[in-house]
């Protein structure tokens, strides 16, 4: 079949393009190896001071739960002593439980306030710690109030699994790889075809340029999925990453994210006249996303205002969905917000691509 020839040629072109291979496979592997070798977990341990008078059964259990979580290095003491330790920098955060913790008036349950003191200078650890605390509290919420569950939301104890930094990092890197292929990979490819007059040469033959481009992009999407697979397998085999979710869900979300970023890449190739311009524009879009979308560290550690804005970045949705699907038993339904948001981004990208993309 002649279409097969085109796919074969696209595969050869992709793997002989050492520069693209360097960025699309080698760099992610290096980042993962560096972070995998470093013992980030020790560094990342959150020193939590707990003020717990253990007046209630629930507060006792709560204390035990916290002790079991690897994220925390829990010390217990009086409020005064713990706050002093926080001031000296010996604690990252101090959680004060009220004396009547978990005791509710059944007729009129009022939410209880827990006070959390934290060291502003350690925003990354505080962010990670707060995330875990919130999760535990929301689970306890169900247990204590015995509210009938309206949604059977499978909140898994991510907390005990997400603790290793490599677990956190690998899904982020996979999402980053997908973004890079779509935005910089596609826009650099197409603009270089345009710049070198290759698209014009194609028009001199009976092939539809769109069929040719489809063969190129399709091949790259498949090869990228394989590369994401390679990174995941190395992460699991070498760096002991925990893959808990169903890999099929990861494939689906990767394709959805891939389509969204591809259409952004097509839009850029319409705006940029040369390969260099395309790469510059692509970097301007990619670089901030890489750091604002939680690839390398939890987004919770960013200032709240910045979080609110960057919530809407396509990479934020993809990173979040990849992480949930890889590290928990979440399904595509659980991360439906991300799925819908990514679909909306794909539509936005498609509209931009149609508006800006030109063959010549």
């Amino acid at each position, binding site marked *: 079949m*002649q279409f097969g020839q085109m796919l074969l040629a696209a595969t050869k072109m992709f793997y*002989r*393009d050492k520069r693209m291979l360097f960025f699309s496979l080698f760099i992610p592997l290096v980042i993962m190896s560096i972070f995998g070798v470093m013992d980030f977990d020790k560094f990342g341990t959150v020193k939590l001071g707990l003020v717990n008078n253990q007046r209630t059964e629930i507060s006792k259990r709560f204390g035990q739960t916290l002790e079991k979580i690897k994220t925390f290095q829990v010390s217990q003491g009086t409020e005064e002593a713990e706050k002093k330790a926080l001031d000296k920098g010996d604690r990252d955060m101090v959680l004060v439980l009220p004396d009547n913790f978990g005791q509710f008036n059944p007729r009129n349950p009022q939410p209880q306030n827990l006070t959390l003191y934290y060291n502003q200078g350690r925003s990354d650890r505080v962010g990670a710690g707060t995330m875990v605390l919130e999760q535990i509290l929301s689970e306890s919420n169900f247990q204590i109030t015995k509210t009938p569950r309206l949604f059977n939301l499978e909140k898994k104890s991510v907390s005990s699994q997400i603790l290793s930094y490599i677990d956190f990092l690998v899904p982020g890197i996979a999402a980053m790889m997908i973004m890079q292929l779509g935005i910089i990979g596609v826009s650099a490819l197409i603009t270089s075809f345009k710049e070198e007059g290759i698209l*014009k040469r*194609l028009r001199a033959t*009976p092939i539809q340029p769109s069929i040719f481009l489809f063969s190129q992009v399709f091949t790259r999407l498949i090869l990228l999925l394989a590369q994401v697979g390679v990174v995941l397998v190395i992460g699991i085999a070498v760096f002991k990453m925990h893959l808990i979710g169903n890999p099929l869900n990861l494939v689906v979300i990767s394709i959805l994210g891939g389509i969204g970023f591809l259409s952004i890449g097509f839009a850029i190739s319409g705006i940029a006249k040369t390969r260099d311009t395309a790469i510059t524009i692509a970097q301007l879009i990619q670089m901030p996303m890489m750091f604002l979308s939680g690839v390398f560290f939890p987004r919770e550690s960013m200032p709240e205002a910045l979080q609110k804005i960057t919530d809407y970045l396509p990479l934020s949705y993809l990173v979040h969905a990849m992480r949930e699907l890889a590290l928990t038993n979440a399904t595509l339904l659980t991360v439906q917000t991300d799925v819908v948001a990514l679909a909306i981004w794909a539509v936005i990208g498609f509209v931009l691509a149609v508006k800006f993309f030109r063959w010549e």
Partner: protein
Amino acid sequence: MAIIEVKNLVKKYGKFTAVDGISFEVKKGEIFGILGPNGAGKTTTLEMIEGLREINSGEILLDGINVKDNPNDIKRLIGIQLQSSSFFDHLNLKELLTLFGSFYNQKINPMEILAEVELTDKAKSTVKSLSGGQKQRFSIASAMVNDPIVLFLDEPTTGLDPQARRHLWNFIRQIQKKGKTVVLTTHYMEEAEELCDRIAIMDRGKILTLDTPENLIKNLLKTGFKKKKIIQEANMEDVFLNLTGHGLREE
């Protein structure tokens, strides 16, 4: 017998008329040259015949087929060498020809085509590593994967040294011997005189004259034209080739 018929062809870009109502015919099996200064409308004319550019008005028939209505049928019948065509970076010559064959949905024998353009030993090289003359020969090879009946060459020898130019002329004559029609543009009068069976000279979107090179020169002399310089029996190119030989150089 005419293989290409062009009737009252017009192409406008805004207010600028690039091709201004030209008509001519190309006979089957001839080498037809279009000459003219830059911006005369040569490339635009070629690209309209090739179906690459929209025709504003007028009609083009190629082998009896209307180009405007059937641009895709035309592309199967012709081979095109663009003025500056480049190829994919990471494929070698053999792979490129196979890929181009797939664009015509044809299985081709790339080595056979490479042998025709004397590039057999470069089968595993990339286009970037070829010399100027080799590049042009490969560019023509890529235009021949579909065994076209008409071959269009846009300034095929621009930028080549005299040896490579002469080599390419021989090569184009061989294509003609296989019964193919060749339409080419050029800036070199010597090339037009030596290679072309008939020549159209264009300027400002119009054809000023169309005839065989011999007749064009004869007609000029009839008007009483005389060269100001004393006619020499040889020119600088003869000196150069006499010293360096006709043998083709491959850098």
